[in-house]
């Protein structure tokens, strides 16, 4: 990470962070807070996706499976054994990380579109299986119907709160951890390895970097983080089902946000979520019932425009503009 982009990350990120931290003190409306929490959640998921895909330069459209598996583990452990969702979340994340190693080991040998299609296939296998399985080895999965988080006395231990503020801050904390991890990645050996693999896979291999191994390390961290997000989502909505928590839509949403914002950068995915999710919320709340799927049309158009005109993400021209205005002030 060179000094220029570091400055840009700081000048862009710190004020944004300060604003986000005080918003709940001003905004009391539950719907607005809910929408803001969803923006933070998507920023987090896009950043987790970016952690491996953005830096290795391979596009996974199967990340939703990590969120889904972890969400199911959390809810099932809570209903089955009474384990606190916090513990379930960590266990779920670990499960997602293990699963990601199994998926990633054979898949990282494939390149470009082949990699993408295989990740879709893996995620679809798990989703279709779950959708059609009511019970597995005595565990009630309830198929397409989904699972409901049973109501219990509110409190920290059970991850259930009155109002939206607590969820908002949990999502924000997750996002901060994710961004810190990304900044650490940028400066670490692993980050340089990943960028080398993205730049020239064969060249990196010739220098003694094992592409599959380091991609797998990044993938398992990314899957763990995505898993935490999936568990959070399950607790936030108190309901999960295979379609919403594991479907292709979730994978595509997070990937698009990351790509539009700028993959392989710290703040790109956040910016992408900040641009795209409000569009989705607005179309849904104002036009929702009448125009089904309109927000996805907008996503599609934004994606096409971004790939054609901002191939490195919207963050690049923004950072350049910030630098220029910073210079002219001096």
């Amino acid at each position, binding site marked *: 990470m060179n000094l220029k982009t570091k400055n840009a990350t700081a000048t862009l990120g710190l004020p944004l962070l300060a604003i986000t931290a005080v918003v709940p003190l001003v905004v009391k409306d539950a719907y607005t807070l809910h929408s803001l929490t969803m923006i933070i959640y998507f920023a987090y998921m896009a950043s987790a996706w970016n952690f491996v895909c953005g830096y290795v330069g391979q596009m996974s459209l199967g990340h939703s499976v990590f969120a889904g598996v972890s969400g199911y583990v959390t809810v099932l452990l809570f209903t089955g054994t009474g384990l606190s969702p916090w513990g379930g979340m960590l266990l779920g994340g670990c499960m997602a990380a293990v699963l990601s190693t199994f998926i990633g080991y054979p898949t990282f040998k494939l390149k*470009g579109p082949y990699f993408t299609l295989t990740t879709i296939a893996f995620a679809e*296998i798990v989703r279709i299986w779950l959708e059609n399985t009511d019970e597995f080895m005595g565990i009630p999965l309830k198929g397409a119907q989904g699972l409901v988080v049973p109501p219990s006395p509110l409190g920290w231990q059970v991850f259930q709160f009155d109002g939206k503020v607590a969820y908002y801050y949990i999502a924000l904390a997750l996002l901060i951890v994710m961004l810190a991890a990304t900044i650490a990645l940028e400066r670490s050996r692993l980050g340089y390895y990943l960028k080398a693999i993205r730049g020239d896979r064969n060249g990196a291999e010739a220098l003694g970097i094992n592409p599959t191994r380091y991609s797998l390390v990044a993938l398992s961290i990314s899957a763990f983080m995505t898993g935490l997000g999936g568990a959070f989502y399950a607790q936030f909505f108190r309901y999960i089902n295979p379609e919403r928590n594991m479907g292709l839509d979730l994978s595509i949403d997070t990937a698009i946000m990351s790509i539009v914002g700028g993959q392989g950068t710290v703040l790109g995915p956040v910016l992408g979520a900040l641009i795209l999710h409000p569009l989705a919320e607005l179309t849904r709340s104002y036009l929702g019932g009448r125009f089904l799927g309109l927000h996805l049309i907008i996503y599609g158009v934004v994606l*096409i425009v971004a790939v*054609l005109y901002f191939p490195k993400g919207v963050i690049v021209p923004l950072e350049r503009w910030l630098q220029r205005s910073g210079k002219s002030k001096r």
Partner: protein
Amino acid sequence: MDPIILMYAIINGVLLGGIYGGVALGLSLIFGVLRVINFAHGSFLMLAMYASYALWTAFGIHPYAGVLVTVPLLFAFGYFTQAVIIAPLFKRETALVVEPLGALLLTTGVFLVIDNGVLMTFGPDVRSVSTEFASGSISVMSLPINIPRLIGCLSALLIAVGLAYWLRHTDTGRSIRATAQNRDAAALSGIHVGKVYNITFGIGAAILGVFGALLVPFLSITPTTGLSFGIKSFLVVVLGGIGSIPGSLLGGILLGVFESVASQFVTATSASVFSFCLFIAVLLVRPNGLLGRK
């Protein structure tokens, strides 16, 4: 298992598989020439199906006659998609900015726009065209054979042969093959590469115009029909080897038989899990397809 039921499942699988192969032809052609994986392939098919449905409900035109409309429509659609949306990427690529995933992302965008555009216009309801001969069948050796499926499978064969002949013996076909082999050399010998790309994309989509009309009589349509057919087409193309016309048909028939026989033992949804497993296995073991060259 009863051999007659198994026989019936295999015949049905071959018929449906032939159609899968035919649907995948365009995907294979486009990849072979442009090196672009069209993620919106299934959406194009779904669009063709809705077009024939609309023709049937609005004007009472039989889907088979509607081909006269759907084929030019889909050709124009494919041509437009390439010329307006994907071509700028190729122009940038000549300036040596290599972006292998760029085209996949663009077609993902097209997929989102088409699928949700149709969802917005027609709603999520399942629709179907009921023609009198949809359930008609002839019997061969006491096994019933569904006529619309038979027609679909034979058309796939016919289109594959026609496409291969056309690519081999016409000027446009030759320039398409030349461009597929070496884009720069083709450009140097006076072939307008951009135009060849547009035409190839158009033809790849136009084939779906035929199959949209052929599928409608026996398959109900929803806005998500496209994605499932799209994923099946990737599977077919990977099985048969990307860019190969006979490979596409063979891959289709293999998948069709596999699905049809597997669904005799397990439920149809679990069978689709198995076809995904097949897809992953083939990609990992033989990434160039069963007929593909190394």
